[in-house]
């Protein structure tokens, strides 16, 4: 599940980095790291996780929209994550085991990391941002590029469609 190329499936490509790249803002390498990260924040269990749900696609899309101001933050944060992974386990983040990935995340969360990327951007700040954006992409409306097939809403047993309301009377029945 971790390797699904969700970005490619989601509509017109308005890329800021060239045409062969399915992502809009991120480069392939960054996108891989981001997918691996979000999938530990909301991992797959009996229900799919954040990578399958397209959370990386959601974030990529917002980075050329309302979150434009955070492009640099993400670049630095993703680079920093791989630096930290290399320092801790000798590999880039996507190549680590789940347990190792969680350890890296806990290090970012606590801010107990070294590496040059974290000098400008505190690791904790990046982690906080990532957690809230992952929640938005997973639990928010699918129209923004995440929550593929309303996966989180199904998990929460929310009836669909959501816009249709109802009085106690069933208005779908003809009298």
């Amino acid at each position: 599940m971790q390797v699904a190329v969700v970005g490619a499936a989601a509509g017109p490509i308005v890329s800021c980095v060239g045409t062969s790249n399915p992502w809009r803002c991120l480069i392939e390498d960054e996108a891989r790291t981001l997918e691996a990260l979000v999938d530990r924040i909301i991992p797959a269990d009996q229900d799919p996780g954040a990578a399958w749900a397209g959370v990386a696609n959601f974030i990529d899309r917002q980075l050329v929209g309302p979150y434009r101001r955070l492009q640099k933050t993400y670049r630095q944060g993703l680079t920093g994550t791989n630096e930290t992974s290399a320092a801790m386990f000798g590999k880039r983040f996507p190549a680590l085991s789940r347990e190792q990935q969680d350890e890296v995340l806990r290090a970012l969360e606590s801010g107990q990391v070294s590496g040059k990327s974290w000098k400008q951007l505190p690791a904790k700040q990046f982690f906080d941002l990532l957690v809230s954006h992952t929640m938005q992409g997973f639990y928010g409306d699918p129209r923004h590029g995440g929550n593929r097939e309303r996966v989180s809403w199904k998990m929460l047993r929310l009836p669909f469609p959501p816009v249709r309301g109802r009085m106690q009377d069933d208005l779908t029945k003809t009298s």
Partner: protein
Amino acid sequence: MALARVNAVIVGAGAAGGIVAKELAEAGLTVVLLERGKWYTAFDCRKDDLRNQRTSLLGCSFGPDDDRYRRVVVGPDGQERIVAPSEGAYNNNAACVGGGTFSYGAMGWRYLEKDFRMRSTYGAVAGSTLEDWPISYQDLEPYYTKAEWEIGVSGDDTKNIFKGPRSRPLPMPPPPPSREHLILKAAAERLKLHAFDIPMLRNTVQYNGRGACMRCRWCVGFACEVDAKCGTHNTVIPRALKTGNCTLRTECVAKEILTNGQGWVTGVAYFDERGRLQEQPADLVVVSASATETPRLLLNSRSRLFPNGLGNRYDWVGRNLQGHAYSGAYGLMETDTYDDLGPGASIAICDYNHGNPGLVGGAMLCNEFIRLPIQFAMLRPPGVPRWGAAHKDFMRHFFNRCIAVHGPVQEMPVFDSRVQVDPRVVDGWGIPVARLSGARHPQDLEVANYISGKAAAWLKEAGAITTWPKLPGQGLSGGQHQAGTCRMGNDPRASVVNRYCQVHDMANLFVVDGSVHVTNGGFNPALTIMAVAYMASEHIVQTWKGTRMRG
């Protein structure tokens, strides 16, 4: 080129401005209603959980936009920050026809009698400008009734023994109870609390030519696709336009109120929808731009006679910015309580608005509006991690089993919580922006703690297996319940407008909106803003008929 003179210009087509427009136009005055936002309709109801007026993570659906609007916010540490409307620190309400009432939750509260007499009831509070209103509940009662019937309120407060006397019942019944409502009602009865159905500015039956609420999931912060939510955009503003006396100009941003050498107001300068500067001459001007934008406009209207801005001779404009110190508790239940019946909030108690031992004021407590998944994802009890498998498990297990009870704690007005204009930063039209600074009074946090405990007790009685508190921070308050910045009072040296919302030293300038609230009650403020607007309008019409306000 100056536009043709009219009798009145009203700045802001929100809760108050819409009412004033209708009352003046029906009385025969020619009116121009200026609104910086657009006129949205039920068709603009996008039900976007990440981009609405309450959860504005990806922007504010009903304005203002992040590109042209900004504010400067000064933190408790003295740090200045430029913030966009979609950020919480901006303290946004809305920018559209109807103002906040287009997308609000639509609770339609009357304040209690004591809420107008806070100083006489509790005495002076150190560090606060706590005062009585110059009007009483009894003065306002007929106008509350008028608002309830003209805008439309459903509910049933007969069981609320704390309420002031009312001259007429509410025009519409409450909706049938949700599962959560029934659970909380039974618990309140066991605790001897006086629970009742919240008065709501929402059609539950056909009323005013519009249909009933169909109880969707997405109400507060969203437009209503069946137009059942009652705001000024679908009640008084259409009525004002129907008279033929009122012109509504949308996407028009007021820049400055114009005055002449005799100290009379002569009109309003504004940027029209194409960005051209226009001057609209008028006999009188009503500012209804909300409690943060009204003081900004007054302070931006400087001249030789008014070097500190209009109404600001004694430095009270922009002072006492207040909102509510929301507090309460969340409770996790053993079985499903969620039944997907909007709007969610429906049951309330006023047992803790006053008479709390050793404390000044209090709050109404009620259940929350429907909580969307993204909102639930942002809260959790202590001990539950915020990410990883355990968090996902928590979401799955408790999304349908969580009840929140909370309430708007009445804040103590603080002189230094204020709106100024920033000396450097301007908006997309080059107009100096609002600069917000100050902090809550420490007593608000004490009351919030107490109220939170009461909420938790109600939830526990209702069967909660775990509760955890929701508490406000110390920072500046304003937000959607913003009020207080052009206080109403009898003493011109310690207030901005008189009891009729007329600026003290200016016969033809009025401020009618949340700004005039002396204190903000332990309730959502819109119905009180509406009642005051009806009262002020009546006075404006009478005065205008007498003098025509020609300077």
